[in-house]
């Protein structure tokens, strides 16, 4: 990663998260955006198309669709088609429950440009359903099987929690047995995840165990979720700094723009695409400028600083109300926490 170029500011995000709706057919206890009912005044199809035109003009490479459940939007296939017409790659995070043979076949027509992450949060129905709701494990597995029979790049995505931490190797094996890849994401205390943080939060020992396991599994993808937790061996596989407002940002269901999906609150509001051109927000929003110049000075003396640059500001904010305070769950702090308990 060439931090120098990233910190001086790119002309546009490399990718962005677009939560196309807040509506969801599930009520997962860790949901980062507390999804359920649709937000008031969600973007119309026309406004969504206009945003895609703007993102294409800005040369954004990829849109990561989330929500809510993206497939719950009746116009979602049209939104996808429009992205692909513009040669924008897409990645969809879904619970899989609304996918059937016909819908998967339609997606497969665009398989060069789309990838899909199906959320499964346990290797058994009991563990997964306790977090995501009754029947979600079986439904998601059915969706993965349909997708695995197509050329669509598919992965099982698991949010690491205290409840499923000991099932991660089993989930990895499950993904392999289904012919798809495995991706692990970090649980962060935002949305409904904040309400259930104490119950779902992995322990320091679980995080260390996971980190050790991850180091032996280069095929497991993590996005930027665990850059503050992974050892040097995995550095070449991902980021070594927070990409918010530098490489990525988030557009919410109503068109509000934020540095990342885990910081969708007024304090981090960068603008609305209903009122400003996307590229003006990217270039000029004060909150984006502050993220680009954010330095985690309290971490600079740490031996791992070059590997994480202070970790995830969103976790620091939600747990310590301090964006520049250093990631409270970084590898060094996990090791220290375990040593203190001994």
């Amino acid at each position, binding site marked *: *990663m060439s931090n120098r*170029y990233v910190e001086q500011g*790119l*002309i*546009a995000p*490399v990718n962005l998260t677009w939560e196309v709706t807040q509506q969801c057919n599930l009520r997962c206890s860790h949901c980062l955006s507390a999804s359920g009912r649709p937000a008031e005044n969600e973007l119309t199809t026309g406004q969504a198309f206009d945003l895609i035109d703007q993102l294409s003009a800005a040369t954004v490479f990829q849109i990561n669709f989330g929500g809510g459940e993206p497939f719950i939007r009746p116009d979602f296939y049209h939104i996808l088609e429009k992205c692909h017409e513009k040669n924008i790659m897409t990645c969809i995070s879904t619970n899989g429950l609304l996918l059937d043979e016909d819908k998967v076949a339609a997606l497969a027509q665009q398989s060069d440009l789309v*990838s899909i992450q199906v959320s499964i949060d346990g290797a058994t129905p009991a563990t997964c359903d306790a977090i995501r709701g009754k029947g979600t494990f079986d439904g998601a597995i059915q969706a993965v099987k349909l997708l695995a029979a197509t050329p669509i790049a598919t992965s099982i995505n698991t949010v690491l929690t205290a409840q499923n931490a000991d099932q991660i190797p089993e989930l990895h094996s499950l993904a392999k047995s289904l012919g798809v890849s495995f991706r692990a994401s970090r649980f962060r205390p935002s949305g409904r995840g904040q309400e259930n943080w104490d119950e779902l939060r992995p322990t320091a020992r679980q995080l260390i165990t996971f980190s050790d396991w991850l180091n032996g599994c280069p095929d497991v*993808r993590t996005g930027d979720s665990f850059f503050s937790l992974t050892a040097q061996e995995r550095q070449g596989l991902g980021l070594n700094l927070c990409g918010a407002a530098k490489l990525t940002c988030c557009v919410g269901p109503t068109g509000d723009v934020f540095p990342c999906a885990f910081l969708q609150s007024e304090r981090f509001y960068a603008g609305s695409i209903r009122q400003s051109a996307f590229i003006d927000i990217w270039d000029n929003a004060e909150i984006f400028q502050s993220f680009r110049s954010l330095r985690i000075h309290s971490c600079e003396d740490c031996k791992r600083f070059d590997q994480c640059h202070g970790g995830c500001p969103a976790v620091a904010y939600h747990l310590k109300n301090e964006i520049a305070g250093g990631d409270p769950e970084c590898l060094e702090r996990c090791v220290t926490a375990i040593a203190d308990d001994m």
Partner: protein
Amino acid sequence: MAAPAVVLRPTSQVRKEQFGLLFYSSLGPKLLFAETGAALSCEFFSSDSVQKEVLASLPDDQKTIVLTFLRQLVKKGFAYEQ
């Protein structure tokens, strides 16, 4: 020096940045920051004929640098030789 056409993979894209070219591959995903300055444009990857034209216009030392860079692009999985 023979110069095979180098084609970006369908999973790869490129755009112009201040420092040069930024390559993106959805496999990973991964990024490549290429400090090419104004020496190469995105259009270089648009067709075989454009590549030949650009390479033919370069002095030998610059042509060697560009060809080495193209081999790196192939090696890192962003492109393939046609």
